[in-house]
């Protein structure tokens, strides 16, 4: 092969990041959505500090999950429409690795900004510093898992015209364990207990998704591109 596998990963990642940088609105959408949803809750609900504090883990995690779902639609769509996917499919390289690079690029531009702004929003919810740390950690482990799980659904629906709701219905249930563990870890830290249990489980889910999702998405994209 002309290209080492690490190089292949890097070349695809670099190009996807470059394309994303030229398309600012796509990067901003999920994080703006996340900020809006989280900022609206205190306005509609009782804004007492202890009430918001109890609400924070759930609200932040649900908003992060919805932001991830919102952005998944675009993961492979443009590539299928402009023919790039045909080129990637006919390369003599393992497609799973290409998919993994694309998913990582997607997480870096849509998931990472959410993780970065989450602590700021958590402060407005009066979350104590140690709970914010756990929230950050759980999002850092959890949102890549969401992107990886979502890549399977995005690959399956990439050939369809109106795939938004179908995609959400398909991968939503798969994402629930991540939501429960992530929110639970933050909640446990908030009540002063040791949150390592749910964090370990989140890590296990990430390892599982990392190894199983790319090959599954690769198979799905072959079907979608047919």
């Amino acid at each position, binding site marked *: 092969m002309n290209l080492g596998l690490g190089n292949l990963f890097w070349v695809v990642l670099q190009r996807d990041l470059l394309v994303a940088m030229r398309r600012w609105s796509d990067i901003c959408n999920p994080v703006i959505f996340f900020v809006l949803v989280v900022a609206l809750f205190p306005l509609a609900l009782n804004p007492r500090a202890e009430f918001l504090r109890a609400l924070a883990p759930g609200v932040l995690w649900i908003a992060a999950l919805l932001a991830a779902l919102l952005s998944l639609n675009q993961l492979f769509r443009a590539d299928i429409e402009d*023919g790039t996917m045909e080129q990637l499919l*006919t390369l003599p390289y393992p497609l799973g690795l290409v998919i993994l690079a694309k998913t990582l690029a997607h997480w870096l531009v849509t998931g990472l900004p959410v993780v970065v702004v989450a602590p700021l929003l958590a402060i407005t919810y009066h979350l104590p510093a140690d709970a914010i740390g756990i929230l950050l950690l759980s999002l850092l482990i959890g949102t890549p898992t969401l992107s990886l799980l979502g890549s399977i659904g995005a690959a399956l629906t990439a050939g369809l015209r109106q795939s938004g709701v179908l995609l959400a219905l398909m991968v939503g249930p798969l994402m629930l364990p991540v939501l429960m563990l992530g929110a639970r870890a933050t909640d446990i830290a908030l009540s002063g207990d040791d949150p390592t249990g749910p964090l370990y489980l989140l890590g296990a889910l990430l390892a599982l998704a990392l190894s199983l999702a790319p090959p599954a998405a690769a198979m799905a994209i072959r079907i979608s591109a047919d």
Partner: protein
Amino acid sequence: MARRRGGGFREVDLLTGTGLTLWRGANCLFDALSFSAAPGNALLIRGPNGSGKTTLLRVIAGLTLAEEGEVKWNGTPVIGCDNSGRHLMTYCGHATALKPELTTMENLRFFARLSGYPIRQIGELLVASGLAACADLPTRVLSAGQKRRAALARVFMSGAQLWLLDEPQTNLDSAGRQFLERMLQEHLAGSGTAVIVAHQSIDLGAAPVTVLQMGEAA
């Protein structure tokens, strides 16, 4: 525009399709279709619209699975590399595979890195394809013909032995067609193989051409 790695391809390499059958709903696109193409030969696929030419090309490229039959390059699948690490096949469909956000140069650089084409020679290739002035323009602003030229430049960069071209003349002006024909003649003279879906006549020089008629004759 010298061929990237000197020397011809091995003489034994042969593209064969045997007993290919594909149905789309109740329509049989092709039934027990067989063909072969030797190095230095071109296979022209002709036929009316909707007769399954593009689908056949996608089957050869491995993008669509045939219900029966198989396509082999000298006994191995066409998606792969030869002994020297060169890609066996490149596919150029209707979609140009160019990202509208990236410049022509950036688009081609990506494919050059994937296929191992020397980055420094992309500039030369852009001149040969008549795209030198558009190198730093986002492909979003290119005309359809210029995008087609960029897609053909990508085919050339792949260095593959087998070219699968789906109506490569679409949107090209006469200079663009000359570029395409020159490229194809050079490829075939270097013992490459090309499978081309074409409606218009295409001058392939001295290369032996087999015509595969789809539709009524199939």
